[in-house]
Every structure is written in structure tokens, then in C-alpha cells.
């Protein structure tokens, strides 16, 4: 069969035969992922002074990735157990892992757990938990609109829209104070339609590091109760905010108390360092045990056509640690050490900027919580820092303190200082208090 299509001319391969045109010939190259793309660019840079403070992966002070001792131990235990097999998990994942994750989240004495009102399904880390929860809501919830804070993790909009939800925003960060825009938040949630879903960062807000106080959380909770807004927590940093697992779960526990219903996406990527193993859980706290059981059955229908069943390895490691008292305690110590190193990096960067007399108030560097600092630098300044100082960070001005090392602090401080002083005066007035 002859084809007079002009595209034939470029095909040299004799086996291309009749298929002159791929059915996907009209595709364009997708843009690089804004967050993961930072590391791609960093890897390409040959400069000896380059610094990667882009993606939120924890590094030791030597700049190396860290596998927790307790994780190594758990893995060895699993490998040495010849009776272990690699069979399919159930669709909802490893039962033990699910129970222990719910306990970690809601507390060992949680009434909701005692009353069998919580359904927990193992998912692919935080992303997977958000996606599965989102799809469940898009199918079964009467008001499939979700309000996300401004700003939020770069991928929240895509994940939630991909799940079939309609995405709107509420005010959260105040650039002027570099703190919470509490008034704006209350106004926006107050004017949301009754029953709308609200995405909340349980602790250590990404990217700003700005968290509500306990009193503010209570006000938010009451407002949401009165407007029948449904809370969907993203819990990616439990243990990383204050160093204490229970303290970091206070917001979630407050909402789940008194019979409140909510969804929670839980991740072990950061707090157990299990990043690539994709370990997480989606918990839905329901009014009754019967409802929880029906909800679980519907979650299975979302999961099965996506990937059938979740991966076994990472969840087995997490369960091994969570159920062993000694390993659990060792985990909390290693977790606190990571949180403490981040806090010391904050202090070092703050001191370095003060020492250079960098214009502006940089106290937000030590006030903000968790892995990230929202510097307040604009995309122009960020591009300058990358170009001139080989600093790799996201264009929204977010720096991952978890990947910063003592050695890199002076260079980073120099870069920030240069960016702030050399680029427009309006910037200077913006950052000063």
C-alpha cells in the first residue's frame, strides 16, 4: 500500500513499512517538572560550589542522603526471614501497617479507632493518598470542590484535579508579615459553599513553614464545623515540625475528636526516610463503623484499576518499626536528630545573613517550621542566584533547609545577600519590616 504522505520521506527504517505516522505524532514534549526539574538542572551543573536546596529530601551535614539505622535494621530483619514471601498484599495494603499508621496519626487512645470508625488504606506515599482520597471524593461526595491554601505544594492542584475535583484557593500566607493571613483565611473559608472540602497541612506547611497556632486551629475547626466544610489533611511531616510525633498531630486529633469526619493523607517519605519506597496511608474518619466499612469497600474500587495493590516492601519496613517498642523509640530519637539539624541550619543561615548585614528582617528563617524556608525572594532573584551562584531552588523562593549543610551556608548567604542588594530597590522595601 503506497502512501504519498510527506512524512514518509523522513523514515529510513525498512521495517517502518506502512505506518508512516505514529498515532502519537502530534504530541509535544511536556515541560520539565518544576520541583523535580530543579534536581535535574543541579545534576547537570559542573560547578564545584553548586548547592541543591530544591527538593525536600533530607541530607546529613555531609550532604549525603540518610537511611535511618532503624530502617536498615528493619530491612535486614525482613531479608533474613526466609519465611517471608512477596505475595500480593490485599488491595487495602498491609493490615498491620494500616492499623499502626492510624494509631500514629490519631493516638493510641483514639475513640475513633476504638469504635472502628476509621478506615485506613495503604497508598503510594502522600501523593498516592491524596489521589485515592480525591478520586473517592469526586465519585461519592456531594460537593466535589476542594479549597487549597495559597501557596501550597506545587503539585496539589494537579493531583486533586487529576482525581476529578474542582480546585479553588483560600488565602493563607501573608507576604507582608511572612506569617499567616488568618483574617483572609477565615473570610475565604467562611464564604465557601457549604460542604466544600478544605485541604489543610497538618503541620510544617509546605512551602511556607507557617503553621496556625493551636488557638487558631480551634477557630478554624469551629468555623468549618459550622459551615459543614470537610477537612482533608495532608500529613507529610509528622515528627519533622517540632521533633515530637504527638505534638505534630495535634491539629488532626483536634478535628477528629467529638465525632468529626475527615480525610488524612499520611506519608513516611520524610519522617522515616523511605522516599523512594512510596509508603503512605489514607485514613478516613467516619461517623460510624458501618459507614467506615462501606467507605473502605469503595476505596478498593478506586485502587484496583489504578495499580491493583500497593507495594509491599516499604510498608513492611514501616510496620516492623512501628510495632517494636525499641525500634519505635530509636526511630523517635533519629527523627528528633533530623529535626534538630534542620533547626540548627535555620539558626546558622539567619546568623550568616545578620553577619553580612543583608537588608531586611530575616527572622522568618528561624520562625518558620519544618523542612522549608519561604525566603520571600522573587523568581528574578532566584534565577540570579542560580546563574551567578549555582544555587538550585524552586522559583517561588522556597529553600529546603533539610538539604542545606554547614559548609554550604556561607555560599548560600552570599548568594541571598547579592540577590537582595543587587536586584531592584522595591525588593529591599518588601523584605524589610
Amino acid at each position, binding site marked *: 500500500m503506497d502512501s504519498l504522505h510527506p512524512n514518509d520521506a523522513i523514515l529510513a527504517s525498512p521495517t517502518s*513499512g506502512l505506518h508512516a505516522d505514529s*498515532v502519537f505524532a502530534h504530541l509535544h514534549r511536556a515541560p520539565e517538572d518544576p520541583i523535580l526539574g530543579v534536581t535535574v538542572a543541579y545534576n547537570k551543573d559542573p560547578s564545584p560550589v553548586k548547592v541543591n536546596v530544591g527538593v525536600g529530601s533530607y541530607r546529613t551535614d555531609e550532604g549525603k542522603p540518610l537511611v535511618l539505622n532503624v530502617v536498615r535494621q528493619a530491612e535486614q530483619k525482613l531479608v533474613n526471614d526466609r519465611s517471608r514471601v512477596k505475595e500480593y498484599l490485599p488491595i487495602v495494603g498491609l493490615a498491620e501497617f494500616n492499623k499502626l499508621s492510624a494509631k500514629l496519626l490519631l493516638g493510641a487512645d483514639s475513640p475513633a479507632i476504638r469504635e472502628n470508625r476509621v478506615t485506613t488504606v495503604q497508598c503510594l506515599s502522600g501523593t498516592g493518598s491524596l489521589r485515592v482520597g480525591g478520586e473517592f471524593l469526586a465519585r461519592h461526595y456531594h460537593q466535589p470542590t476542594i479549597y487549597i491554601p495559597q501557596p501550597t505544594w506545587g503539585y496539589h492542584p494537579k493531583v486533586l484535579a487529576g482525581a476529578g475535583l474542582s480546585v479553588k484557593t483560600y488565602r493563607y500566607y501573608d507576604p507582608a508579615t511572612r506569617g499567616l493571613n488568618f483574617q483572609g483565611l477565615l473570610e475565604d473559608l467562611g464564604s465557601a459553599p457549604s460542604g466544600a472540602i478544605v485541604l489543610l497541612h497538618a503541620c510544617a506547611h509546605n512551602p511556607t513553614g507557617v503553621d496556625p497556632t493551636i488557638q487558631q486551629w480551634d477557630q478554624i475547626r469551629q468555623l468549618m464545623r459550622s459551615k459543614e466544610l470537610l477537612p482533608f489533611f495532608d500529613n507529610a511531616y509528622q515528627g519533622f515540625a517540632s521533633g515530637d510525633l504527638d505534638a505534630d498531630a495535634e491539629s488532626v486529633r483536634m478535628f477528629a475528636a467529638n465525632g468529626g469526619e475527615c480525610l488524612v493523607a499520611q506519608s513516611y517519605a520524610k519522617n522515616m526516610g523511605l522516599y523512594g519506597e512510596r509508603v503512605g496511608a489514607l485514613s478516613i474518619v467516619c461517623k460510624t463503623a458501618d459507614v467506615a466499612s462501606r467507605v473502605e469497600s469503595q476505596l478498593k474500587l478506586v485502587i484496583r484499576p489504578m*495499580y491493583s495493590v500497593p507495594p509491599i516492601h516499604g510498608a513492611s519496613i514501616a510496620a516492623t518499626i512501628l510495632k517494636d517498642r525499641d525500634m519505635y523509640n530509636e526511630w523517635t530519637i533519629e527523627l528528633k536528630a533530623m529535626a534538630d539539624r534542620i533547626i540548627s541550619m535555620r539558626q546558622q543561615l539567619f546568623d550568616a545573613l545578620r553577619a553580612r548585614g543583608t537588608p531586611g528582617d530575616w527572622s522568618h528563617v528561624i520562625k518558620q517550621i519544618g523542612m522549608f524556608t519561604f525566603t520571600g525572594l522573587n523568581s528574578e532573584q532566584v534565577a540570579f542566584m542560580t546563574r551567578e551562584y549555582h544555587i538550585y531552588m524552586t522559583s517561588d523562593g522556597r529553600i529546603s533547609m533539610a538539604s542545606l549543610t554547614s559548609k554550604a551556608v556561607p555560599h548560600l548567604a552570599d548568594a541571598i545577600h547579592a540577590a537582595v542588594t543587587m536586584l531592584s530597590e522595591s525588593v529591599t522595601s518588601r523584605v524589610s519590616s
Partner: protein
Amino acid sequence: MSSWWRSVDPAPKDPILGVTEAFLADSSPNKVNVGVGAYRDDNGKPVVLECVREAERRIAGNLNMEYLPMGGSVKMVEETLKLSYGEKSEFIRDKRIAAVQSLSGTGACRLFADFQKRFHPDSQIHIPVPTWANHHNIWRDAQVPQRTFHYYHPESRGLDFAGLMDDIKNAPNGSFFLLHACAHNPTGVDPSEEQWREISHQFKAKGHFPFFDMAYQGFASGDPERDAKSIRIFLEDGHLVGIAQSYAKNMGLYGQRVGCLSVLCEDEKQAMAVKSQLQLLARPMYSNPPVHGALIVSTILSDPGLKKLWLKEVKVMADRIIGMRTALRENLEKMGSPLSWEHITNQIGMFCYSGLAPEQVDRLTSEFHIYLTRNGRISMAGVTTGNIGYLANAIHEVTKSA
């Protein structure tokens, strides 16, 4: 205040995985599970391949657990493409294949279905009758409308080749078809090499898109190269194929969720574009795929000694299943069954489409504590020398007056 979820109905149980749940709940000492397609040794025990144990010993505690790139493990994908396209494939050499690590076969199919929806929103998927039940769920959730095509011939318990060819001819030009590369699930009925050539030829004439689900490479004949024959025929004929590959069965990595989705493109530039779009679809689902299983695969396949061991172990599994097929048929014939059981040895791979009616299956379960899916699909991997007599007897009992 009442629950938000008052109106949520309980979902129906998964027909396949629900069988194992029921089996586990049964306390009878005679119970037999020939439901889910997970391999068992002759003692009825799950198997972890030695090559896998060795690979795990080498990697445990040694490497960090950083995120894989969105497209997954480059090494694992490279080795996986060699299995499907051929070790010396010009398509690999010319970088014409867009490929990403996926969450086993299910994840690969779902990613392709989403990709098909995004870039060919008006297209449909043609699915064989019968097929793995989850195929329907996958394309439905991707919102791609489905058509079916004739495949299984109940009377002969073989291939309905005439019906299949008619449906290929009658489908609109440029239709998307789902094909099982080997060891069709659930029937075990595969086209012959000659028939594959005719199918490929007809696909060319119609400009159809062939999407292969290859979940059992190595498991059908015991030889991965032989099991990839259908794909190689299509590649020789110039088709730009799509392939979903899984290591769940042939490496026994079920729970690790390791697989690969590949799409053959016209050139390297197009392959890069397609790969970037596949990644864009995976990112909002799970960001990046799990690292552990991929590490096992790449450790095994890139080490000549381990790879050789793997090929040996795959052959052992396939041979045991072939042996059980022969034995089951002989047992039934010896019992004087009035029916023909030729199809047990004609069919290939993990499953035997027994031809049992749902009511007969129900009797097998309620009277004999034998668990299988209601479509009469028997997982031969669950048959052992220990239970084959009991199984044959039970099948004979429920069919002798058929």
C-alpha cells in the same frame, strides 16, 4: 450531624481477589485454592526465587532510598525492553522506545489508558472476550469507551479465529486493540504463530494500534524469547506497538509492583516527547514508582550469573505447570469422564478455562472446598501432586452428568 457518607453503597467484592479471601476464611482441611494466579510449588507454597533472594541480599541496607526519577529506574527499564523487543533490537539502539517503570502490569495498562484518553480522546479500546476482569475497570476509570471482539470459542474451548478476524476487519480503521501477548488470561488460549501473522497483516491493512499486555513472558513456554513471538512478529511487520510488562509472575515479585510501559515511536525525538507525557500522567497519581522491586530486577538482569539462574527458575515453574496440565487431563480421562479434556493441555500459561458453568463452580466450592473464579478459570499454578487427585475427582463429580 450525620455522616457525609450515608449514601455510600457497599461495593461488590473483587471477583478474583475475593476468592482468596473466601478461601482463607474456610477451615476445611481439604480446601484447595486454584483462584488467584500466584505461583505455588508442588507443596502448595508460595515461592521466592533464589535469584531474587540473592539480589535482595546484595542490596539490603546498602543503598539509599531516594526518589527514583518519575520515569522510574533507567537500568530496570533498559533491561526490560531487551526482554520484549529483543536483546539486539534496532529500536532500542535507535532510542525509538518511550518507556517508563510502572506499577506492575495494572499500572502500565492504566497509564496507557490515561495516555490514550488524553491524546486520542475520541478513541475506543477493543477488548477480547473474555479477558482479565480488571482490564474493563482500567479503561473505564480512564474514561475510554470499550468495544469487545470475539476471542474464545466455548464449543471448542479454543480460539474463535474467524470471529476474531471478522471483528478486526469490521472495526473502524485506526482502532485501538488490547492483545494478550502470550498465555491469555483467563482462557490460556493463544493464537498460533501462523494466526498471529495473519492478525498482524490484517492490523496493517486497517491501520489499527496494537497494545500488548504481556504479564506472563517466560511462564507460557518456559522460554521468554519464544513467549515474545507475537510481539516480534508485529515489530517485523512495522507496527508501532505499545506494551505493558510485568515481573509479578515471572520473577515472583507480585507484591513489589514492578512493571514497564513502553510505546514504540517513529524516532528518538518523538520517543522523548511521549515519555515526558507519560511521566506527566504518572506524577499526579503517585509521583514516582517504588524503588525496591526495580532494584531487584535490575540487579538480576544485569548480572549474567543471576540472569542465567532466573531463566532456569522460570523454566522450572513453567514446566511444573505443564506437568500439572498433563496430569489433570490424564486423571480426568482415567476416571471415565464423558467430556473432552483436551483443552487442558492445549491451553497454555497459568490458567485453564475449564468450561465449568458457574453452578458447577459453586458446587466445587460448597461441596469440595475448592476455590476458583466463577467463570471456571482454574489457576494451574495452584495444582499440586498432592491435591490433583482430589481436584480431578471433584471436577468429575460435578460434570459427570453434564
